[in-house]
């Protein structure tokens, strides 16, 4: 069928302003979006820039937005996008510096962030130079090792559109891969790196990344596991440590959350500036009869039992 591709264009060597070119080409049954891009470049417009490498869904190089959603063009069939009409829009990813047309800056998008998590293994040295790990110990990591860095999780991330400096699920999943490797003798350090601002604690764990990952690696669950590991060994992000300690203390002591206490303890009881910051909202809430007063909090029935469970779980995971 004849399909019109409406393609994002930008040429820094000309005026650098974004525009759109429409190309109508024949897309035979079974053609992928990438097939059509090659056809356009070879037969219609040799100036169109796009990326592609393996052309079989293994390398992730060809990711662009097809009708608004990130897809690997090499596995995206044209017929899947023409049900509403023979038009398909192609755009680079959102919020990423564009180099030319559909070619965007992968370093800024993902590679610089992956480098920031120190993506190498600090393995223990053994006498014979080998570091053999039982198969079962690697079972969980095998899935993560299948990541081919396509960046689909980062494209789906909720935080990156508001804060491009957030490390993002791809780099944090790489950190998981290293922190949870049984050979890593510096696992704790690896977790500390991603505890810094713009790391695991900036993630809202909304599971968008898991929905976007084409390999089922579940990046959000990896980030949650890194956070649990940080909690277990002592959170090093100060504000988060205060918040988590207060939350845990409140549930441990009374069974449920003392929200007023959480608000003040998250700021820090001696942090006058931080506490002052709470005042306008607290005063307004109080006037509406909805600000929970800190420490005026009753115990839930059965809270002693909850405390026992809490203590036992903490003990077991130490």
């Amino acid at each position, binding site marked *: 069928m004849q399909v019109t591709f409406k393609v994002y264009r930008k040429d820094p060597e000309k005026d650098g302003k974004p525009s759109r070119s429409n190309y109508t080409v024949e897309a035979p049954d079974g053609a992928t979006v990438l097939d059509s891009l090659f056809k356009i470049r070879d037969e219609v417009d040799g100036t169109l820039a796009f990326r592609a490498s393996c052309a079989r869904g293994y390398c992730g190089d060809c990711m662009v937005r097809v009708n608004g959603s990130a897809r690997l063009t090499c596995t995206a069939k044209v017929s899947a996008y023409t049900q509403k009409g023979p038009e398909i829009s192609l755009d680079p990813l959102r919020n990423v510096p564009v180099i030319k047309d559909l070619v965007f800056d992968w370093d800024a998008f993902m590679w610089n962030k992956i480098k920031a998590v120190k993506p190498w293994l600090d393995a223990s040295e053994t006498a014979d130079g080998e570091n053999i790990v039982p198969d079962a110990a690697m079972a969980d990591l095998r899935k993560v090792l299948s990541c081919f860095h396509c960046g689909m999780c980062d494209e789906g991330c909720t935080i990156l559109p508001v804060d491009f400096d957030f490390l993002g699920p791809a780099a944090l999943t790489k950190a998981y891969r290293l922190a949870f490797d049984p050979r890593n003798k510096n696992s704790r350090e690896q977790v500390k790196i991603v505890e810094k601002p713009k790391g695991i604690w900036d993630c809202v764990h909304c599971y968008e990344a898991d929905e976007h990952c084409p390999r089922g690696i579940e990046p959000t669950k990896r980030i949650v596991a890194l956070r649990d590991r940080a909690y277990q060994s002592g959170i090093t992000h100060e504000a988060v440590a205060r918040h988590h300690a207060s939350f845990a203390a409140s549930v441990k002591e009374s069974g449920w959350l003392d929200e007023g206490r959480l608000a003040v303890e998250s700021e820090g009881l001696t942090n006058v500036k931080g506490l002052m910051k709470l005042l306008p909202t607290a005063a307004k*809430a109080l006037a509406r009869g909805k600000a929970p007063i800190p420490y005026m909090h009753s115990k839930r029935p059965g809270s002693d*039992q909850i405390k026992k469970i809490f203590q036992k779980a903490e003990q077991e995971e130490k």
Partner: protein
Amino acid sequence: MKYAFYPGCVSRGGCPELYPSAVKVADKLAIELEELKDVACTGAGVLPQYISDPINARTFAKAERMGLPVMTICSTCQGVMAQANYRLKEDPTYREKINREYLADEGLEYKGTIEVKHLLWVIFEDYGIERFKALIQRPLKGLKVSPFYGCFLRRPPEAITPTKELNRRKAYLDELIGILGADMADISGKGKCCGFPILSANEENSLAMVAKHTGESKEKGADFMVTPCPLCHLNLDGNQAKAEAQTGAEIDLPILHLPQFLGLALGFDPNEMNLKRHLVATDKVESKVNMLT
């Protein structure tokens, strides 16, 4: 119809307007609620899984003993419990370990038979939309409403939308807006996070998210936004003024809890739904609703 009611901490703490509104609506619908009183907070995605799974297993064991499914009124409670329940149901060895190490001491055991459902799901899946429609006394004609689900009521799929048919859950709130007679002011971020979970780690990003969602809703001409999640409410309503100050944009968008939205259509007076307790004034919504009666 009877449920073991799990109201969650926020419906009585930071959003005390939610609990009584939900109870009134349930009563009107003749949904019987037996509150789970001696159970803990779900952990809300703050406590690590190795602590929250046992305390949630205890809640499920208590509901199982009552012979009732659990009903929640919070997307976060729902999400955390549904994820824990999925792990406990899927992996009998894990469940037995938790039973043995944490619940046996109290004479409890979770057999893995409990369903946990948000009020929004209960209405569509258990109560029946036709039966619900018959009780609508005040169709909310002329009111324009944006849906905001709370991300834990959308994902992850194995816990929230485990079958193809249950994928419908992702559209319940959209459908409900039409059913209650209101118009939709659709927004691109309705299934995204509100920003609440990172308030302590990165308040700036959190408030930017509040401004993005509420600002888009306002641009689409919404009279208010409705959410089934009180944590979203705490951020979208409670921190809207801060988000306005950060971005310099005036937003002024009332945020209603799901039971309040239901209650208005079921004929309750806005005062009975405690709208006055919100931080963003709801006067305009109230006068529009009062014009309908």
